[in-house]
């Protein structure tokens, strides 16, 4: 596998996973919770790393997943106390957990190859060189396996629970009334977000993963009118951003992950301007036509 191919493959699989869970986050008005999780999994990653002394371990994924669910739990608790607004509860919880992670890494892991910059910004350019060796044979870059399995997990869970996730996102009241357990579905989705973020963090980093979680679903939201199409469009625009971002990084000789996030932002601007129904230009034309039809007296 050529290096370029591996980078684009990993990028597309990360973008697709993020777009799938991100669509539900955006529709449930929880985009910032994705942001919060992407930061607060850091202590889980650090603890997992310290316990297992390796970056490839399952312990790290489990630790991060646990911290993600803990974040959601704490945010919900604060919110339900009725003393804080939802956004303030998120703002209280995640920087605290993130800071614990920063301290853990800077104190105990800075000598080894769990580098803070790498966690924050990721380095997708190195993924082709980190190979998995099973019983003496090389079976390919580790990131391909990690992000591939994550994408598979996302496809399976969202495929199985599509109807339930749609119902709980649109009308939690009916979801509860029909006996579909909104709280459990919520935690299922949040666990999925946590795992997705962990798998993505080493390729695009904890900060830029937010761009992949939120921006492609927002592009899709502006373009289509059905949930299935929104999921597909979000995945497609995430992958377009990966290709365009890689090209951009090549031209500018800059960070690949940064290029991808900028490309995603560019796609959003295009959709915001050009969307046939909700775009700025379309509504400007509609207004002009309406004025033409009912001229001022």
């Amino acid at each position: 596998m050529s290096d370029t191919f591996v980078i684009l493959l990993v990028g597309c699989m990360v973008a697709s996973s993020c777009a799938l869970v991100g669509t539900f986050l955006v529709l449930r008005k929880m985009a910032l919770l994705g942001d919060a999780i992407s930061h607060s999994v850091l202590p889980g990653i650090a603890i997992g790393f310290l316990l297992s002394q390796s970056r490839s371990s399952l312990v790290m994924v489990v630790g991060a997943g646990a911290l993600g669910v803990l974040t959601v739990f704490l945010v919900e608790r604060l919110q339900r106390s009725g003393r804080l607004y939802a956004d303030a509860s998120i703002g209280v919880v995640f920087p605290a957990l993130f800071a614990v992670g920063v301290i853990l890494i800077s104190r105990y892991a800075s000598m080894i190859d769990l580098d803070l910059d790498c966690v924050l910004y990721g380095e997708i350019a190195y993924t082709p060189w980190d190979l998995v060796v099973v019983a003496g044979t090389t079976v390919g870059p580790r990131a391909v396996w990690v992000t591939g399995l994550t994408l598979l997990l996302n496809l399976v869970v969202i495929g199985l629970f599509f109807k339930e996730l749609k119902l709980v996102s649109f009308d939690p009241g009916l979801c509860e009334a029909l006996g579909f357990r909104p709280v459990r579905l919520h935690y299922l989705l949040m666990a999925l977000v946590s795992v997705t973020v962990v798998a993505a963090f080493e390729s695009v980093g904890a900060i830029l993963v937010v761009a992949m979680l939120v921006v492609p679903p927002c592009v899709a939201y502006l373009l289509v009118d059905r949930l299935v199409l929104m999921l597909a469009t979000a995945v497609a625009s995430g992958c377009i951003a990966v290709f365009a971002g890689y090209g951009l990084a090549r031209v500018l000789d800059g960070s690949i992950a940064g290029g991808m996030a900028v490309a995603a932002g560019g796609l959003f601007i295009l959709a915001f301007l050009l969307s046939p129904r909700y775009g700025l230009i379309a509504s400007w034309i509609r207004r002009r036509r309406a004025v033409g039809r009912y001229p001022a007296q």
Partner: protein
Amino acid sequence: MTGAGAVPKTGLPAVEVHDLTVAYRSNPVLWDVDLKVPEGRLVAIVGPNGAGKSTLLKTILGQVRQTTGWVQVYGEPYATRRSWVGYVPQRESVDWDFPTLAQDVVTMGLYGRIGWLRRPGRRHREIALSCLERLGIGHLAGRQISQLSGGQQQRVFLARALAQDARLYLMDEPLAGVDATTEKAITVVVVHHDLQTVPEYFDHVVLLNMRLVAAGAVEEVFTAENLQQTYGGRSSILTRAAEALFASKATLKE
């Protein structure tokens, strides 16, 4: 969805509420309510803003936990009677910009019958379409829900409740189209705001203001005296002014 009289009567009260107190944090919203709604009636719940009308519906549905007391639907807890109950929430309770079609929303009423993990099939979509047709908006089945007017959105919710094929319907302020659901053995409990139309549309009324003021046949309990007790004896203009103020405060707080 069944023909007239196809649902046999059970002989049980559709809803029975005993000694019910509900509090949000420490503020009581419902206080010591005892209520029996007989089967097969069209019931209006009326009372001023903040009287606990929506809370009463949500408690029956198990969405709000009571502090004391119990609620039964046809002699059983709600959890075992889910499939007998259809719910029409307030239109504002969901985001109508959600990317989905009118027909998909109605199909959601069938999810309980479809069960976990299975997908709705063509048969379910046909049922959904026929429910939309019964409410006179079959031609809007393929519309994205934000492209519907407020009244049409309300009808989508009613069609969804119809699809649930329930024998008890709980409705939070539907504006129109309630008559599409009425049949002999079916009970409909509606939170209603327009006092003037109560005798015209309903045969049973529940007067509520945190406590139960009165409940029974409209001709017996829908009296000036009971209404005055429910609405605190304020003149109608004062009441309206107070309610407008209440509403504006509620908006400000959000």
